[in-house]
C-alpha cells in the first residue's frame, strides 16, 4: 500500500467499506506515513464535526421527486444484495424475496427522513445496520483473535449448562452433526453492549457463529439477510429472542443451516 493507493481508498476505509485485508493494509500505512496519518486525522475530524453539527438540508426538487417515486413503488427494485444470483430453489428464493421487501425499503425510509428539515431523527436506534456491523465484527474477532470458543464441546448437554449463570436467559443448544453442521462449542460475546450467547458450528473449513440474545420486541420478526465485506448474516426474532447467523459460507449452505435453527422448537 503506497500513498496514492491510500489517498484513493481512505474514504472507503473510514466508512468501513473495505474488506478486512484492505483495511489492515491502510491502517498499517497510515500508522507509519505522517502525511497520510494527518489526512486520516483531518478526515475523521471532519466526519465527527459533520455528524455533530449538521442540521438537515432539504434535498433538491429532482432528488425529492425520485425519492417520492421510489416510496410509491409497489415492487421495490431488486434487493440490495442479488439473492437471485445464488442457486437457491425457487420456493426458498420466493420466500426470501418476500422477506427482503422490508429490507429493500429501508434505504428509502432513511432517505425519506431527509425530507424533514431540522426534524427529529426518524431512524430508530440502534438500526439493524449497526447491529449487523456489530455482529459481523464479533464474528471476525472470534476468528482473528483465536478466541472462537470459551467452552469447546460438541456435546449440547455440556454447552447449554455452561451458559447458565453467565447469562440471565436460557439458550437452547442443538448439535447438528447428523445434518452436516457439527457443534464446536460456545462463547460469551457482546453485541452493542448486550451479553449474547455465541454458538459455534463448523461446516468443512468454515465457521458459523449463531448469536442469540433477548429482544425487547414482543412480536416475532421474519427472516432477513444482510451482507458486509463478504460475510452473510441472517437475522430474525422468535419467541422474544434475537437470532443472528453469520458466516462466509456459501448462500445455499448457510440458508440450510438457518432453516435447521428456525425449525427447532
Amino acid at each position: 500500500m503506497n500513498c496514492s493507493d491510500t489517498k484513493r481508498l481512505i474514504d472507503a476505509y473510514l466508512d468501513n467499506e473495505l474488506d478486512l485485508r484492505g483495511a489492515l493494509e491502510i491502517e498499517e500505512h497510515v500508522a507509519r506515513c505522517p502525511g497520510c496519518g494527518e489526512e486520516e486525522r483531518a478526515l475523521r475530524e471532519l466526519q465527527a464535526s459533520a455528524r455533530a453539527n449538521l442540521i438537515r438540508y432539504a434535498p433538491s426538487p429532482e432528488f425529492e421527486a425520485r425519492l417520492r417515486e421510489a416510496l410509491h413503488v409497489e415492487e421495490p427494485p431488486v434487493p440490495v444484495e442479488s439473492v437471485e444470483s445464488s442457486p437457491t430453489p425457487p420456493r426458498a428464493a420466493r420466500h426470501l424475496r418476500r422477506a427482503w421487501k422490508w429490507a429493500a425499503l429501508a434505504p428509502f425510509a432513511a432517505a425519506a427522513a431527509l425530507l424533514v428539515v431540522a426534524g427529529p431523527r426518524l431512524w430508530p436506534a440502534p438500526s439493524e445496520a449497526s447491529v449487523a456491523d456489530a455482529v459481523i465484527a464479533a464474528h471476525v474477532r472470534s476468528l482473528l483473535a483465536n478466541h472462537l470458543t470459551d467452552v469447546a464441546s460438541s456435546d449440547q448437554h455440556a454447552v447449554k449448562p455452561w451458559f447458565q449463570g453467565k447469562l440471565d436467559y436460557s439458550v437452547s443448544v442443538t448439535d447438528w452433526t447428523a445434518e452436516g453442521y457439527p457443534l464446536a462449542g460456545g462463547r460469551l460475546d457482546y453485541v452493542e453492549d448486550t451479553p449474547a450467547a455465541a454458538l459455534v458450528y463448523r461446516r468443512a473449513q468454515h465457521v458459523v457463529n449463531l448469536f442469540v440474545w433477548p429482544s425487547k420486541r414482543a412480536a416475532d420478526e421474519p427472516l432477513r439477510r444482510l451482507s458486509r465485506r463478504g460475510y452473510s448474516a441472517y437475522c430474525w426474532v422468535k419467541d422474544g429472542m434475537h437470532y443472528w447467523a453469520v458466516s462466509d459460507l456459501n448462500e445455499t449452505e448457510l440458508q440450510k443451516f438457518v432453516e435447521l435453527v428456525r425449525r427447532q422448537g
Partner: protein
Amino acid sequence: MEALPVEFREVFVLREMEELSYKEIADVARIPIGTVMSRLSRARRQLQAAVACREQAGSAS
C-alpha cells in the same frame, strides 16, 4: 455546506447523517458505487478546504 454542489451534498448527507452504506446510497441516488465513492471523496475535500478557508479568514480579521 451550501457551497457544495447539490449532488455532492446529497451523497455526503446520506453517508454522514443517515449512515447508509455505499451500496444503499447508490440505490437511493441511482448512481454507480464508483460515483458514490468519488462524489463523497470530493465533497469531503471541498468541505475541508472551505473550513480551512473560513479559519484563515477568522484569524485574519
